[in-house]
């Protein structure tokens, strides 16, 4: 019962009868077992932890980081890093809020109230544009990913602050007579008891998993992350792949921004500060290599749930926020330590 499908197929294809030792099994599925351990420990410590309603609440918290982490995984598989996702999340929320308040067109003397679907699409487009800026800077202008996305981090955050003058858009519920209600649907509604945000996360995870495992693009991404020169000489359009991953990461951040501002029914310009670090942590805990070419969606999802369930668990049993930070850091370092042991063995 190993965790990632890649390992399953590997074992099956080898056709070897020998069983993996317990240590190996624990090691391969370390993110999965860490998650189980977290759930067991907190369930023993608090009766409120192991309940359906608590799991759903925790999952809707995870949805935000999870969406960012999926985009981050694509970028990290490519051998890059995207520090701008937290700011993009914040900017997306602010732009959505701005559109919901109505767009004044002074020349025509009218105020446009775009419907929620238009707002969602425009916000996703914004995320794509921010990602495209990252991608072009990195792929064509050869700016190191770390620096390019660090710059965009500041620019996006600055624009969000400028747009709101530092204030927050409240009351994003819309009004029936203007025909723009429904923004809170993403954050509050449930389908079969499951919060929409969680469903969005699962949908993104499934699509991304298929993208990585069943399409030529996925293969291009793994190849160019593993060895860009070899990929290029094999005919992989490495620059287009690079731009695509940053665009997808930007879209993921925009969707996360929509879900978050919908959950809060308000959009603040400082939302999502330092979330990029949590997203990177989730990807790393999920077993991806920061050097590129290795990592899976399932691993990343486990990583996101490990971080989310751990910090919510600490809140439930009443551990101070300061200790939560210390625990999260320890988990990240341990994960990277295990990764380096794993990749060194090859």
């Amino acid at each position, binding site marked *: 019962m190993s965790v990632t499908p890649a390992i399953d*197929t*590997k074992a099956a*294809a*080898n056709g070897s009868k020998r069983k993996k030792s317990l240590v190996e099994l624990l090691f391969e599925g370390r993110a999965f077992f860490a998650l189980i351990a977290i759930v067991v420990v907190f369930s023993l410590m608090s009766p409120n932890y192991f309940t359906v309603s608590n799991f759903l609440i925790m999952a809707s918290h995870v949805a935000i980081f999870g969406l960012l982490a999926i985009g981050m995984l694509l970028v990290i598989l490519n051998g890059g890093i995207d520090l701008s996702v937290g700011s993009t999340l914040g900017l997306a929320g602010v732009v959505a809020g701005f559109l919901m308040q109505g767009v004044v067109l002074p020349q025509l003397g009218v105020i446009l109230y775009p419907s929620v679907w238009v707002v969602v699409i425009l916000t996703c487009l914004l995320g794509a544009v921010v990602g495209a800026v990252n991608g072009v800077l990195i792929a064509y202008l050869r700016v190191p990913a770390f620096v390019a996305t660090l710059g965009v981090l500041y620019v996006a955050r600055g624009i969000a602050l400028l747009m709101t003058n530092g204030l927050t858009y409240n009351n994003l519920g819309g009004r029936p007579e203007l025909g723009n209600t429904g923004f809170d649907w993403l954050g509050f509604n449930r389908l079969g008891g499951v919060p929409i945000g969680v469903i969005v996360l699962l949908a993104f995870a499934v699509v991304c998993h*298929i993208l990585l495992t*069943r*399409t*030529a693009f996925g*293969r*291009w991404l*793994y*190849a160019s*992350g*593993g*060895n860009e*020169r*070899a*990929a*290029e*000489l*094999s*005919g*992989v*359009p490495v620059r287009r792949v690079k731009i695509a991953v940053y665009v997808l990461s930007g879209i993921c951040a925009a969707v996360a921004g929509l879900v978050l501002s919908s959950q809060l029914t308000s959009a603040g310009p400082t939302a999502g500060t330092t979330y990029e670090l949590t997203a990177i942590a989730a990807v790393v805990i999920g077993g991806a*290599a920061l050097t*590129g*070419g*290795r990592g899976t969606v399932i691993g990343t999802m486990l990583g996101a749930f490990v971080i989310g369930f751990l910090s919510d668990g600490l809140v439930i049993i009443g551990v101070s926020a300061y200790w939560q930070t210390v625990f999260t850091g320890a988990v990240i370092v341990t994960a990277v330590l295990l990764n380096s042991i794993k990749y060194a063995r*090859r």
Partner: protein
Amino acid sequence: MSALAETAQKGEVVLAARNVAKSYGNVHALKGVNFDIHRGQVTTLFGENGAGKSTLMKILSGVVQPTSGEIVLDGEAIAFASSSQARDRGISIIHQELSLAPNMNVRDNIFMGREIMTATGVDFAEEERQTRLLMEELEEDIDPLTPVEDLRLGQQQIVEIARALSVNSRILIMDEPTSALSASEVDVLFKVIRDLTNRGVSIVYISHHLEEALQITNHAVVLRDGTMTAYAERKDIDLEWIVRHMVGENFDLGSPPSGYDKGDVALSIEGLTVPDPGGADYSVVDGLSLSVRAGEIVCIYGLMGAGRTELLETVAGRLKPSSGSVKLKGRDVTGQSIAGCIRDGLVLVPEDRQRDGLVQTMTVGRNLSLASLGAFTRGLFTSAARELDLVGDAIRKVHIKTDGGDAAIGSLSGGNQQKVVIGKMLATNPEVILLDEPSRGIDIGAKAEVFKLLAERAKQGLAVVYTTSEVGECISIAHRIIVMRRGRISAEFGPDVTKEQIMAASGEAVHAH
């Protein structure tokens, strides 16, 4: 050092390898080599790529440990745990790729890692004084405070030598020291070498420029395929002797395939000129024209820097030519992207398989299928079953020894890794295949297999162009042998050419500069 020279008799054996063997997994890089280094004399190691020269040098200088056998220093068996231990005993190595920090100055490079310390920090004044002394000794006018990146390559080499001397090295190993030097720099280097030997320093010299090495050496040792095939003193040998022992007389890499009609011209290169990718103002390929027919095998021979790699990379779409054209079956493909060239049937197997050929993070199968993803993608999705067929097919056709497509790339031997790179490109069903040094770093058996495979595919109508820097590989399966020198074709031969003729045309057998 002068004291050493006086007390010890010149010519006695200072360092010796006794029955030294080294294996990397199943690859036997060295198979029991005996080798002497004489005090105050130059010993040159001759051998083709992959003959084991570098491995032997790494063992002598403590970089790697031998699997069996021993190293004898001054009559006493020793084992170096690291290169710094070897350095402490007076053995230094200057690698082909210089190991200087270009951003730091000459003084800091020479004392890197063993700075002269006082109570208040590094004694820069003393370091500078010693550096000046060293430079005077070497008769080089290099200021100790010059950043290394501002020095010419030849001067950088001198700095490396100065660094080796500054630790009182009495045995200096030089791996291809002249490959990047100009003629006048080579003269300076040789003068330095003569001075050093007069002072009792022993030199081990490795070079592909045979004639040049013969000028300086006292002893010649020839390695082939991990064993020492010949030893002689300078006065007893000539160029022909070296080539004969280097290449071997009996080894057969096949002959040009025959018994079929070659097709029309598949690849035609017209007046191709490529500027130096590094930005220097000369052309690495200079107005070169060549045409290759379907079913024909063409070998391009040339020394390092002759422009072979740049020629192939330009034809395959990686570099852009400044003028000239490339036509594939009469269709102009000049300046087309790599992906476009692959689609049209023009593929390149790059020289450095680790850097340019393989994706180490992916399995054997995924590497093999990487260039032909389109062949098993239907609509949006790849088909696992079709990919499995393609991979299985490639493994069979190219004879890759592997546990299957799911094996890790790192589990394969060098020869089999090379076959993966070739198999990946053959899986695209090309019309023309370009191979840049396909035999580099693989053992002789794998070489023969690769050549046999290419001959078979040529019979089926594939046009094959391969480069090599080993003369023996020219006279094998190639129908035509092209010799390149400084970006141009300097000679063209049929398969009945001799090794000496090829070497003369490349500028190797005459003085190279």
